[in-house]
């Protein structure tokens, strides 16, 4: 079985028809191997819910909490998708991932390093549209993919 860990923006692209990368995200999903599995972490679960319910993001299409949970529920009921609890060693893995960036004032690195640590700990391939995150994954020996 091959596991993939989409970042929050990839989940958003799969969930919102107007996302600029919707077509790329769906082409990638449709080409998954038959044993491919997509995993939510708590971080990506809450992140997706927050974005879907934020007017500054979704504008006229902002969902209420019930509707956003409905989107999430539909995903985790999909046979290809599951929620993965936080691995026990995630704390140490996160610190390892953040070590090369320790001297930077870079709040973005916090989220990126957590995603990398989670993907590594679960043996999943991180899926992102963010080229910088993709490059960082490569430097840290974490499998990653950009949907094309």
């Amino acid at each position, binding site marked *: *079985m091959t596991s993939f860990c989409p*970042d*929050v*923006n990839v989940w*958003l692209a*799969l*969930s*919102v*028809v*107007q*996302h*600029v*990368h*919707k077509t790329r995200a*769906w082409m990638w999903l449709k080409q998954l191997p038959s044993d491919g599995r997509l995993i939510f972490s708590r*971080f990506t679960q809450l*992140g997706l819910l*927050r*974005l*879907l319910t*934020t*007017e*500054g*993001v*979704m*504008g*006229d*299409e902002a*969902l209420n909490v019930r509707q956003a949970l409905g*989107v999430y529920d*539909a*995903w*985790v*009921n*999909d*046979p*290809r*998708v*599951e929620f993965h609890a936080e*691995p026990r*060693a995630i704390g140490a*893995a996160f610190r*390892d991932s953040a070590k090369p960036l320790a001297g930077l004032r870079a*709040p*973005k690195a*916090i*989220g*990126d390093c957590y995603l990398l640590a989670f993907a*590594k*700990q*679960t*043996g999943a391939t991180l899926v*992102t*549209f*963010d*080229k*910088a*995150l993709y490059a960082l994954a490569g430097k840290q*020996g*974490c499998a990653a993919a950009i949907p094309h």
Partner: protein
Amino acid sequence: MPVRTTVDIPDALHDQLRARAEQSGTSVRSLIVRAIEDAYTKPKKGKYVTGPMVKGRGKLGPRFPTDENPYDLILP
């Protein structure tokens, strides 16, 4: 509560597991537990999502992302 158990694994398989664990930054234990879960848990019975569920064509907000994760909005 985890249960401790002892299983004899062929040398070659153990070497493969250890290499895979080092490669993916996880542990041999995690790989074994995952494999057992994959093999013996019941498959889920749900509907496949076939397209985006938010289908409205209303105007999106100014913070709608393109490539990067908007962490300032994701993290509380």
